[in-house]
């Protein structure tokens, strides 16, 4: 029996995802209130860290072949990946708050396609931000020591970070179904990012921050990313294991959120 015969909506997962993604990207591009912060925030962080902290590259023991600009570029790239996902979570929460999310739920035959659509939109947003960020970094004279393949690997890591953050935020948005859940999406993401070796390599950290950064999964992603950009790959297997594990874990979280939203009606 076809979906039409049963009276259920017929849209399959891919067409649902495509429609949700298109609307979300369209809203993002058409509204300067969404577009400008998404582009400006990473640039401010990059300018502030790479410009204002350049002298940190002279600290005894700091030995990063591509220079401090490239060192900070990797952090800002991963940070913008994560916040691209979080901001998409905001959009999702707003859609559910205004009732648009419920209409999605009624219309979609395969509701996981809704989450997939937001994830695609988050990725599209991230690509736009990365294009601008990379261009600014190159104009600022960033040195790249890595090969083409290594640079692709760096961006692949960023894609996984973006997907993880989107699925985390989607899980929150689908449970809270209000923009008031924004801090719940944002603060843990901010926390885990800044408890990694942001300013100096792990080896130069000491005390509690070293202990925390050593067990923080983002540290492996950052170190691998910095290895890729400087042409000296490090902790690659661990980084990709983390990169694969995080989206799987948060997919379960998002799936639970979807059940919660369905149960709420």
């Amino acid at each position, binding site marked *: 029996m076809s979906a039409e015969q049963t009276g259920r909506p017929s849209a399959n997962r891919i067409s649902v995802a495509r429609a949700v993604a298109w609307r979300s990207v369209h809203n993002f591009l058409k509204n300067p209130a969404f577009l400008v912060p998404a582009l400006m925030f990473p640039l401010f962080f990059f300018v*502030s860290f790479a410009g*204002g902290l350049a*002298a940190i590259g002279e600290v005894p023991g700091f030995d990063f072949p591509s220079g401090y600009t490239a060192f900070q570029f990797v952090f800002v790239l991963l940070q913008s990946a994560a916040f691209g996902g979080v901001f998409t979570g905001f959009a999702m929460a707003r859609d559910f708050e205004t009732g648009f999310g419920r209409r999605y739920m009624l219309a979609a035959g395969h509701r996981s396609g809704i989450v997939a659509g937001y994830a695609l939109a988050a990725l599209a947003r991230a690509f736009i931000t990365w294009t601008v960020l990379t261009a600014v970094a190159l104009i600022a004279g960033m040195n790249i020591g890595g090969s083409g393949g290594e640079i692709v690997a760096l961006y692949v890591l960023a894609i996984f970070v973006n997907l993880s953050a989107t699925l985390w935020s989607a899980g929150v948005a689908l449970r809270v179904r209000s923009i008031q859940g924004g801090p719940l999406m944002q603060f843990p993401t901010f926390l885990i990012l800044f*408890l990694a070796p942001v300013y*100096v390599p792990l080896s130069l950290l000491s005390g509690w*921050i070293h202990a925390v950064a050593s067990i923080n999964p983002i540290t492996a992603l950052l170190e691998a990313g910095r290895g890729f950009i400087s042409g000296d790959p490090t902790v690659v297997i661990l980084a990709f294991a983390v990169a694969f594990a995080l989206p799987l874990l948060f997919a379960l979280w998002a799936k639970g959120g979807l059940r919660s939203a369905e149960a709420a009606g």
Partner: protein
Amino acid sequence: MRNGLGNQVGLLARRSVIRTLRQPAQIVPAIVFPLFLLAVNSGGLKDATNLPGFPTDSYLTFILAVPFIQGALFSVMNTGTDLARDIETGFLNRLALTPLRGAALLSGLLAGAFVLGVVQAIVYLSVGLIAGAELAAGPAGAVVLLALSVSITVAFGTIGLFAALRFGSGEAVQGLFPVFFVFLFLSAMALPLNLLTTDWFHAIASVNPVTYLLEAIRSLLIEGWNLGDLALGFGIAAAVGALGMLAASSALKTRLVRT
């Protein structure tokens, strides 16, 4: 009817303070977020003290100035959002029907920022000192630091008032937060001016007033009593406050005429 300026300011100030204290969502982030960044930055940038020319061997002492400015930035948001809500709910229109003076309204609304500024300054300084930061100016310096911090918080609060009166929307006021953060980012926030080695960044930080507010606070923490830095810090706070009040008064007149 008692309608003296002092009485009007007092009533609105009381409302502003109670309103601030009843909103943990305003108080908690304004205290917790700067402390979190203090912890992360003081741990992560500890090695900066090894740079030749760094003014102290305690990065915690150096970076302790930053939460005071971050806290003041929250004052822009809180003060502005509260007034914007009054505009959105029509409360300002009702006030406009009373013999209330504009100066009373604006001054009274800053009382919440004043109280939050005092709480923030005491918490930041206490946490910093407990964590091992130094206060070279001693107990008297703590009093001056408190006064400077509150002056900056109230001065920034006037910008929140202006934004609320100009745009009339809480969302627009919230949207200003990143703009003000830029001023903090493009200052001598993480390293002193003499160690900002990137030329264009040094040039921007040198003309950014936030740099001198930070230096005034740092002078008390690191040097002791540097009257020049302190005068500059208080002077900038007074100038920002005066300009903010002027702009807010003008925007208030325009808004009341529209009403």
